[in-house]
């Protein structure tokens, strides 16, 4: 099962303090649906305001990306810059 980790405190507010959990999803779209179902509002937050690292690559916008059986997903704040 893909494992989701978060380094965002905003995520923690939705998950009740949880920083890591497994998901069933095999695409980022499905991941967002699953997050919304388990932690209402989190999917939307991730879709709108967060970046996702999937197996080490950062996607600023990853809706189309697929997830493998053992994918490591990290929810991170969108990175911007000066």
């Amino acid at each position, binding site marked *: 099962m893909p494992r989701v980790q978060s*380094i*965002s*405190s905003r995520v923690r507010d939705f998950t009740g*303090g949880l*920083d890591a959990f497994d998901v069933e999803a095999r695409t980022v779209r499905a991941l967002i649906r699953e997050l919304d179902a388990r932690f209402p509002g989190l999917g939307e937050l991730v879709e709108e*305001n967060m970046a996702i690292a999937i197996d*080490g690559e*950062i996607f600023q916008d990853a809706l189309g990306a697929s997830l493998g059986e053992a994918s490591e997903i990290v929810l991170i704040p969108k990175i911007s*810059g*000066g």
Partner: protein
Amino acid sequence: MSDGNQGGSKLKVVGQRPVRPDGVDKVTGRAMFGADFHLPGMLTGRIKRSPHAHARIIRIDTSAAEALAGVKAVATGADFDTGAGGEVEAGEGATAVKEVAANCLAMGKALYQGHAVAAVAATSPEIAAEALDLIEVTYEVLPHVIDVEEAIAANAPVLHDDLFTTGVTPKPAKPSNVAVKTVMGRGDVPGAFAAADVTVEGHYSTAAVHQGYIEPHACVASFGADGQSVVWCSSQGQFLVRALCAKILNMPLSDIKVIPAEIGGGFGGKTTVYLEPVALALSRKCGRPVKIVMSREEVFLASGPTSGAVMDIKLAATEAGKITAAEMTLKYQAGAFPGSPVHLGCMTAFACYDVENLALTGYDVVSNRPKVAAYRAPGAPMAAFAVESAIDDLAKKLGMDPIDIRILNGVRDGMKTVYGATVRSCAFVEMLEQLKAHPHYQTPVAAGQARGVAAGFWFNIGGESSAAVHVDEDGGVTVVSSNPDIGGSRASMAMMAAEVLGLPIEKVRCTVADTTSIGFSGSTGGSRVTFATGMAVCQAAEKVVVDLKRRAAATWECDIANVEWRDGAAVCTDPAKDVKPLSMKALASKSAKTGGPIASEVSINAQGAAAGYGAHICDLQIDRETGRTTVVRYTAAQDVGRAIHPSYVEGQLQGGAAQGVGWALNEEYVYGPKGTLDNASFLDYRMPVASDLPMIDTILVETKPNPRHPFGAKGVGEVPIVPPLAAVANAVSQIVGKRMTSLPLSPARVLAAMEEK
């Protein structure tokens, strides 16, 4: 071309140093910056600002100002309508629209000295100034807090009644000045510390510093009677200005056209708005164009700066110098509204190093200072100051060379960062080796001087970009970029297009389009333009090449597979056809007969940006009587992937280093007891001038081009401001004879430390 990047040796334009396409306008005074526009009937806008650091606004009486002859409009925060609010992507990430609006014109409370409370538009600057005096604001002055530690304290005056720390479970019952607690890490930190051969620790602080662009914020806004408006302004993102104006004034995006002026420096500080919604609100009220230009004092009081920081750090290492664990707490000033880059500080702090066990905690803390704005690698320089100082301590403790210890611990491809990315296309270690071999490092330190070394990291980003390539009827080419050119990016856009099209650079011009003339683009920031917009340019140019080949094939009545594009001309490879190559000019002149105009526009969301790494060496000396530090030699190395225009890449390294030296030695926001800024001028806020600096040598490391960019480019603009703080401080600490932990290392502070010793 699209798979993998081209080899350096085959390149004809990329890697050369042509004169930039916009150069002549810049050296003749013709370039139009934000304050240079003038429209018929234009009014002067001015802003009334709070004299108090923290005050409730009881009442704003604008009647006397409105009655003054020549005053055409007066605006307050009540003229904004942020509707549903929401967030927009600004320089440091998602920003709440309501807070950007309340920063442009206060709503209910003035949260720092200089906070805008009202604005006027009048027929002359003198009348506008008089009108400001006639606006009566009744304040209830509140206790203020400036210092980040004091703002965290239990009895601190609270800025926002509705601000509850996020990232804490359960949600706090009381509001506080801590907006966000960020926690990240991995491994077993206490275990690693228990097993450590050696540990070092320190308490570090940096001052708030301003981006210091020489051009003050400036704009002209013109609201049309049909609701369609035009804004001319100096910004890092015309589309961002459009989005913020639309959301703050509840207007449709398509009713606002933002025309990017030339931008007189930004460094992140122009990735938000201060004036544009105000000017537009005033223009909407009176139907005339309104120009607002900040004074330098206003720039210091009410724009930027970046966070001052307070940090505690502990490192654990083996006897051989391998860092096994790190623990770090970072407290960053956010200014009056949440949004410091502390999360970026946490993410970047150890990004240069392979550290198995990490515990990072960040606090985003509001206080009665101007709301921070992005500044070049937001959040990273302060964190790197603490980390690179601690590593210096560790090297000393172990008797190791400062570059060797960084090579030993340096990240290499395949390693995992604490924020989830895997390191790739990384030349950190090669870069350190090149720096070590450089004549600067090989030259012994002169008597009375000291040498500091430090490294730094920045992510670099991609994101949404658009670009167009238009072939003129005579075979010349215009590239249309979607990003304000802050440091020469038109040159790199034109060069990449010329390379793909096989044209000499003189045949390719580049322009920056307004919001109605090109597809959407993210802002110029995150060191993304040459990477992301450059990728869009390359793809647009490639499409043009395909089109040109198709037209040549049609002309020759051969298969397109038998047409190659070489040196700006179509060449037929079909041995059965005896035809001469068709040049760009020949094909362009016949375009009407072969399918119409030749042009292509590409909009992408560029992925695959590669991170950047830098390391600097600084030799300096200190006047023992005055405590003044003089940098005598400086070398900056950076992993740049491939330099498209090496001169402008070198310029980024040199400029970033100079800013970092200023941050290290002189620059700071100084507050008095009433929470007012004591040094809101260039005289008192001391930025480096030419006589403060030596030549800055550069090493462009090009051993690991980014395979995800057509020519291998990595972002270069932000990395170079990350290492200098510690490179300078590490050298100063040697001369002083003790670890210098607070920036700036101003003469007074250095002198006191030497006397204490």
